[in-house]
């Protein structure tokens, strides 16, 4: 039976842990709101970019030498995996899910005889993957300490990817990130960036029968638009992941706060019991002392 003092110390320590977790939950909630708003605000650009890209793709569909960003290099030997994780932990299984998924995918590709390279974005993913797949890691990017994600950050990632592709180091690229569905659910998503998957059929572009004029010409615009489109996709993934991170942390910290509350209740009960037992013992001593006189 722990002494009264021990119990008091434990209760206090759990209480201060609870204060920290509930503060972290509150911070995550406000950051989540901001991240969601930012993701929302970035949507129009992505939508219009896609519309423009489709119009272009439609008019250059029979191009003999499509740029590698669109069509890949024609091989599928070397794949670059880009797992997007957070820079901080304490967000439940948020980072581990990405790490596990990346590892499984890498193993599968290697079992098929392909070469795998990994470019982790975010510190946690890098640390996780360094344990087992260190030889495949070709560099890393992290935004630790940044208050707000900017488009230029996504540009950095996409430039690295483009450079590797143009240097012939990779043949394809897959992005792995947590898609934000709700505060309690983030879905690990694989997105193939290169070669670009064909756009979903059905919703054609409303051209009103007319075709676009291009200035300067289709190929020049396409060559410039594709890297931008790649950056947009990466940016979107980064924003989704940021929102997901805060959501996951909020849930994790909510659970932790609740657990701490339960623990305090249990410890307080024990403490009161021990105190009562002490009082009873003292009373017995006094009474039996008086009887003896």
């Amino acid at each position: 039976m722990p002494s009264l003092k021990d119990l008091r110390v434990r209760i206090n320590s759990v209480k201060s842990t609870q204060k920290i977790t509930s503060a972290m939950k509150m911070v995550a909630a406000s950051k989540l709101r901001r991240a969601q708003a930012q993701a929302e605000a970035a949507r129009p650009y992505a939508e219009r970019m896609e519309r423009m890209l489709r119009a272009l793709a439609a008019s250059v569909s029979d191009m003999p030498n499509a740029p590698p960003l669109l069509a890949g290099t024609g091989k599928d030997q070397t794949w670059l995996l880009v797992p997007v994780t957070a820079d901080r932990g304490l967000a439940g299984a948020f980072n581990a899910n990405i790490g596990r998924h990346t590892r499984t995918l890498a193993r599968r590709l290697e079992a098929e005889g392909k070469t795998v390279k990994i470019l982790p974005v975010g510190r946690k993913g890098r640390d996780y993957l360094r344990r087992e797949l260190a030889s495949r890691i070709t560099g890393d990017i992290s935004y630790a300490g940044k208050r707000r994600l900017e488009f230029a950050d996504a540009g950095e990632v996409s430039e690295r990817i483009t450079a590797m592709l143009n240097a012939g180091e990779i043949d394809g690229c897959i992005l792995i990130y947590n898609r934000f569905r709700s505060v309690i659910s983030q879905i690990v998503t694989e997105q193939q960036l290169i070669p670009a998957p064909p756009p979903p059929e059905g919703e054609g572009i409303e051209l009103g029968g007319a075709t676009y004029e291009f200035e300067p010409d289709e190929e020049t615009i396409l060559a410039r638009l594709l890297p931008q489109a790649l950056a947009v996709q990466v940016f979107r993934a980064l924003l989704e992941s940021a929102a997901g991170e805060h959501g996951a942390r909020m849930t994790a910290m909510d659970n932790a706060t609740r657990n701490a509350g339960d623990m305090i209740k249990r410890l307080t009960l024990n403490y009161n019991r021990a105190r009562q037992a002490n009082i009873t013992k003292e009373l017995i001593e006094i009474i039996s002392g008086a009887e003896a006189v």
Partner: protein
Amino acid sequence: MTNKTKDHASMPVNLEIVSPERLLLAQPVEMVVIPASEGDMGVLEGHAPAIVMLRGGIIALYENDRVTDQMYVAGGFAEITPERCTVLANEVLAPTDLSREEGERRLAAAEEALAQVEASDVAAEEMALERVQSARALVEAVDTLLTGGGR
């Protein structure tokens, strides 16, 4: 530039200016002049569908033949249809956000980058040249929009 008669001039063009981070502006205007890669381009209602590349320069919004608003874009793309004009800008700065120091800093950085590009790398040189142009346009934009010019 399309030549329009008076009856068309009353119909607005739905102008949208979007940056990667957010939708900056969506409003009907009578005419908008965008800095296309091969010269400024005025867009009125009924313009033939086109997709153009933009260089660094100034977008000007017109109402009743008068400029109502101007802003600097660092380059990007524009999609034009008879009803609308969508500008996908890499970066947009309102006149109040412009500063000469920033422009000169960028111009210096871009020129330095250009100097380091190897002559054999045509694509990289083109990119660097474009950055220089975009930065120079920013400096010029400061002059025209802030000092004397503008509205």
